[in-house]
């Protein structure tokens, strides 16, 4: 390839961002998006590999060189159409996918210099289409007359709905909350994923014919068997990991100790950061501690900073290397003044006479031998207990499977953790005509893996509806 060396030398686009000292006190989106010129220049860096490794790294097999070529040609409508072929949520994925371990991690340019900024370009194409109202939606196949119930409107449910409606099936999404999007609206904050973007992606699905029933808690408002009695031919369960994990430490029920789910749901879904314009309140801590070091922990920490905290600490029992959050989230958090207190484990929480949190006790750790996860096991240092003063703690150490739906459907097999057992290739469960995917099947993972599971299940559901179980 003649131009290859030249392309390696063109620097990767840098995403314009709100300055850290400004954005740490507002809820507006941090990255501002590429300009047309920046996007075209970046797109031109793509080598257009014959066997694109980037596509292999994508759980939903987006035609990455294809949409990038369209951007390079200045054909932005063509770019979004290529994306929509494989991905119903490009504006979301461009923002929240861990590209560094997927598409961009596989990019040949990355071996010698910097990979193509595939995430930035995906976001650019999706934002451009939304801004201009451009791009023709995928063609919907002739109606099959088959009805599919999609339970949960998070990333995997939305993917299933989009895929199946295009194949001509009659799709209804059942959502427990009053708003669609699942974790995209209750979990991921506005400054990382603006909610009007999620709403616009859902509106695209509605334009394709997807129906939505809000305020429907499947398992209690209606059961899966009742949905079958109502005439549905197949059901997809994508209800997420909706049960917070606490640490069972003394003082955990003091006022001021929250699960990340509660803290973020108040802030994001209920828009408590706009209180009292919105009615739901949220605790505004002066000295905040977030326990855990995943993406959700970073979201909670950065939210606390935006709500006016003086100090925000991430307390994590392992070292920097093991922090599971995306590189970009860690970087943004640090830029905004979030302090990482590593190799430190909480032991108990302290409160005043009114039951309000005012501090916690921690123990310092050191790294020992590798554990079953392959990571070095943190071992307590004896006598290293010390106190951290804090008035707000967010426990962000993961979530378990919520049993509300599965309790009402005893013929769906669960594993020892309560997750639904689903065939990894197809999403099929032990119950006929029921599929599952995303966090309820895999345990807590990422948006794009949930979407990948949704894609596989949608193909399998289509086969069932047209061929058989």
């Amino acid at each position, binding site marked *: 390839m003649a131009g290859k060396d030249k392309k390696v030398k063109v620097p990767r686009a840098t995403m314009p961002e709100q300055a850290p000292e400004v954005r740490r006190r507002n809820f507006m989106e941090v990255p501002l998006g590429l300009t047309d010129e920046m996007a075209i220049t970046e797109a031109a860096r793509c080598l257009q590999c014959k066997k694109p490794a980037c596509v292999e790294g994508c759980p939903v097999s987006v035609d990455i060189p294809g949409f990038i070529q369209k951007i390079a040609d200045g054909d932005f409508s063509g770019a979004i159409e290529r994306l929509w072929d494989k991905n119903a949520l490009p504006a979301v994925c461009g923002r929240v996918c861990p590209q560094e371990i997927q598409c961009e991690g596989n990019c040949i340019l990355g071996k010698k210099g910097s990979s193509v900024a595939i995430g930035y370009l995906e976001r650019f194409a999706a934002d451009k289409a939304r801004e201009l109202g451009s791009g023709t939606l995928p063609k919907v196949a002739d109606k099959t007359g088959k009805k599919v119930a999609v339970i949960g409107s998070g990333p995997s449910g939305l993917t299933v709905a989009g895929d199946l409606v295009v194949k001509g099936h009659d799709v209804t999404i059942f959502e*427990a*909350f*009053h708003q669609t999007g699942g974790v995209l609206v209750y979990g991921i904050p506005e400054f990382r994923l603006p909610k009007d973007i999620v709403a616009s992606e859902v509106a695209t699905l509605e334009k394709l014919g997807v129906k939505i029933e*809000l*305020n*429907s*808690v499947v398992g*209690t*408002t*209606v059961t899966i068997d009742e949905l079958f009695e109502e005439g549905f031919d197949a059901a997809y369960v994508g209800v997420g990991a*909706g*049960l*917070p994990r*606490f640490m*069972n430490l003394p003082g*955990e*029920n003091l*006022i001021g100790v*929250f*699960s990340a*789910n*509660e803290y973020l*749901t*108040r802030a994001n879904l*209920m*828009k408590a950061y706009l*209180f*009292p*314009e*919105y*009615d*739901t*309140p949220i*605790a505004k801590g002066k000295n905040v501690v977030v326990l855990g070091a995943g993406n959700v922990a970073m979201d909670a920490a950065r939210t606390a900073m935006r709500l006016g905290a003086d100090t925000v600490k991430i307390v994590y029992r392992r070292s920097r290397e093991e922090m599971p959050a995306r590189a970009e989230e860690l970087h943004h958090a640090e830029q905004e003044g979030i302090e990482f207190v590593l190799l430190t484990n909480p032991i108990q929480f302290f409160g005043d006479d*009114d*039951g*309000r949190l005012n501090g916690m006790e921690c123990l310092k750790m050191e790294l020992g031998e590798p554990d079953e996860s392959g990571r070095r096991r943190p071992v307590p240092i004896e006598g290293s207990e010390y106190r951290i003063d804090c008035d707000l703690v967010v426990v962000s150490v993961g979530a378990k499977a*919520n*049993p*509300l739906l599965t309790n009402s459907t005893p013929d769906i097999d669960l594993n020892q953790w309560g997750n639904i057992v689903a065939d990894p290739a197809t999403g099929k469960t032990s119950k006929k005509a029921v599929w599952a995917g995303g966090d309820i099947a895999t345990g807590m993972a990422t948006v794009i893996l949930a979407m990948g599971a949704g894609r596989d299940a949608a193909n399998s559901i289509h086969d069932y509806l047209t061929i058989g179980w």
Partner: protein
Amino acid sequence: MFKIVSREEMAQGTIILNEIEAPRIARKAKPGQFVILQVNEKGERIPLTMADVDPDKGTITIIYMVVGKSTALFGKMAVGEEYFAVIGPLGKATHIENRGKVVCVGGGTGIAVLHPITRALKDAGNHVTTILGSRNKDLLILEDKMANASDTLHICTDDGSKGHHGFVTDVLKDVLEKEDISLVVAIGPVPMMKFVSAITKEKGVETLVSLNPIMVDGTGMCGGCRVSVGGETKFACVDGPEFDGHKVDYDELSNRLRAYLNDEQKSVDESEKNA
């Protein structure tokens, strides 16, 4: 969806009844279960235990006291207007069986929650003694309905304007003394449930209480409603709302109910300023 089909003011307008169209919920709801309501897109999610359901008509009934901004907004809605969201039925239903002689103790709007449970206990063949308490006779609700659902009804008022002058616990002690009671169901303000449970614990009489802590989603997702029961943390929304009254940590519950006191006042002040 969620249209108000009838509305009633009780207790001099401080307590409101709404019968709401919610066919899916009405088909499934059982005594003891609750719903979460949201008045508009900006509204807070408020959990309320259902006072009645009519599966044929497709309606549910809630009865609430106007105490803050959200319930004030609920109270202003007229027949024909719609709630933005109603979700349910949530929580576990009351376990109803024939236990012989039972006592139902209700206070304030807790009486509304107690009514369908009392009726179900009576229908299951129990001999039901009911003790209702309120500050004065004008604040007492559902007296006739509770009389119909009970074999014996006692009224207590703090000011003596009706029935026994004093607390429900006075009458309860009396009843426990004279009769062989196998179950007490107590629903009302936290201090009432706490004192009732203290008395029944001493006598060794099984006691159920229904808790209404602060919640967000009501489906087990947020853990905001956690309560300590017998030293274990439970989520009132999915493990409850009913618990063994002898094991609940009422002081922790009272504290947690006060978590947003300042914000609640701010919210009321702000909305009054705007009005």
